[in-house]
């Protein structure tokens, strides 16, 4: 009888673990697909791309951790993450647009990003939600993104505080982005995520300081990955912007030929 009970408990635990796996992780995909492009969004470098993790990147590998601490009585870890998932784009710096699914952050969903770079260029890229549970969610980048890797947003409760964290594990995707990161890109990224975390804290009524920790996990560059530049979202976005006048003239000509 005891054996039967043990087996029943074990089976129940296995079923619960399998349900947890299926719920929190994205399903396997070989290439990304954007089901619906929101009005105003540019979708250039996402559809048909493969995901690219830190192993597939070119540059040095970095782990960057940004944290803010809030009093636990203001918000619990699970409530903070629920809000962060729901209002993710609201906390970003101005000029950077995240076109997520209307249903919010959920495993397997693909979001388009239109980022404003210094000089006013709009860089079009995206991310896929790799993982999402009640206390964390992770976004993974496609080929051609500025960096290859993922960002995990999480919240934990420690010593009467709720600690909100964004942690980036990344390599620059290609030699051009590596140069860009070295020439101020890292600083821009630090400012971006510090701003985001300050906005999260402000949403819960706290003016919190952001702790930043940067670790170079691997100093070596993966020169065999230099050809990632072929997918570069910066080059493709620049090409798209330069082609705008030609596309506009073509549209006008087409309209002129079409009878009313």
């Amino acid at each position, binding site marked *: 009888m005891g054996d039967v009970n043990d087996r029943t408990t074990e089976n129940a635990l296995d079923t619960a*673990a399998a349900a*947890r796996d299926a719920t929190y992780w994205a399903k396997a*995909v070989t290439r990304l697909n954007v089901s619906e492009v929101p009005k105003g969004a540019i979708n250039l470098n996402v559809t048909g791309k*493969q995901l690219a993790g830190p192993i597939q990147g070119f540059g040095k590998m970095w782990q960057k951790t940004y944290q803010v601490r809030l009093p636990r009585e203001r918000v619990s870890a699970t409530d903070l993450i629920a809000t962060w998932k729901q209002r993710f784009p609201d906390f970003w710096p101005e000029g950077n647009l995240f076109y997520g699914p209307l249903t919010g952050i959920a495993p397997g969903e693909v979001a388009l990003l239109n980022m404003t770079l210094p000089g006013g260029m709009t860089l079009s890229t995206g991310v896929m939600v790799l993982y999402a549970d009640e206390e964390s969610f992770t976004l*993974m980048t496609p080929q051609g993104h500025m960096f290859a890797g993922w960002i995990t947003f999480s919240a934990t409760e420690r010593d009467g505080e709720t600690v909100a964290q964004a942690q980036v594990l990344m390599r620059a995707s290609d030699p051009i982005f590596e140069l860009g990161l070295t020439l101020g890109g890292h600083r821009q990224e630090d400012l971006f995520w510090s701003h985001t975390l300050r906005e999260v804290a402000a949403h819960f009524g706290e003016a919190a300081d952001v702790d930043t920790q940067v670790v170079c996990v*691997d100093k070596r560059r993966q020169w065999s990955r230099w050809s990632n530049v072929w997918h570069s979202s910066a080059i493709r976005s620049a090409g798209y912007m330069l082609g705008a006048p030609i596309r506009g003239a073509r549209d006008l000509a087409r309209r002129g030929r079409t009878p009313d």
Partner: protein
Amino acid sequence: MTEATATFGVRRHGAASVVDIQGDVTSGSEDVLMSAYESAGDAGAIVLNFSDLSYMNSGGIGLLVTLLVRANRRSQQLMAYGLSDHYRQIFELTRLDEAVSIHDSEQSALRAAGVR
């Protein structure tokens, strides 16, 4: 998310060290995993046994990437076996399978590591 809920036992088989993973692997497992890795010493191959893995989140996958960097730095191969179908898919999704060779059994992993 930060508490360690996994244990890592290390066994030596000739030129390879097998790391038996038990429990939930999350970012909170960093210290115990890295300490197990240090115990594995100068083995030519590190074989991760996932047969008793209960659960792994994205923080756990991140740890495996940093472990891979350390192993590469020491010219060690990183291998895995005992992965469920679900976690095989996660290795493919995160493209970890391009750097960590996946095997069906301990014997197969040890053979690939050159252990007879």
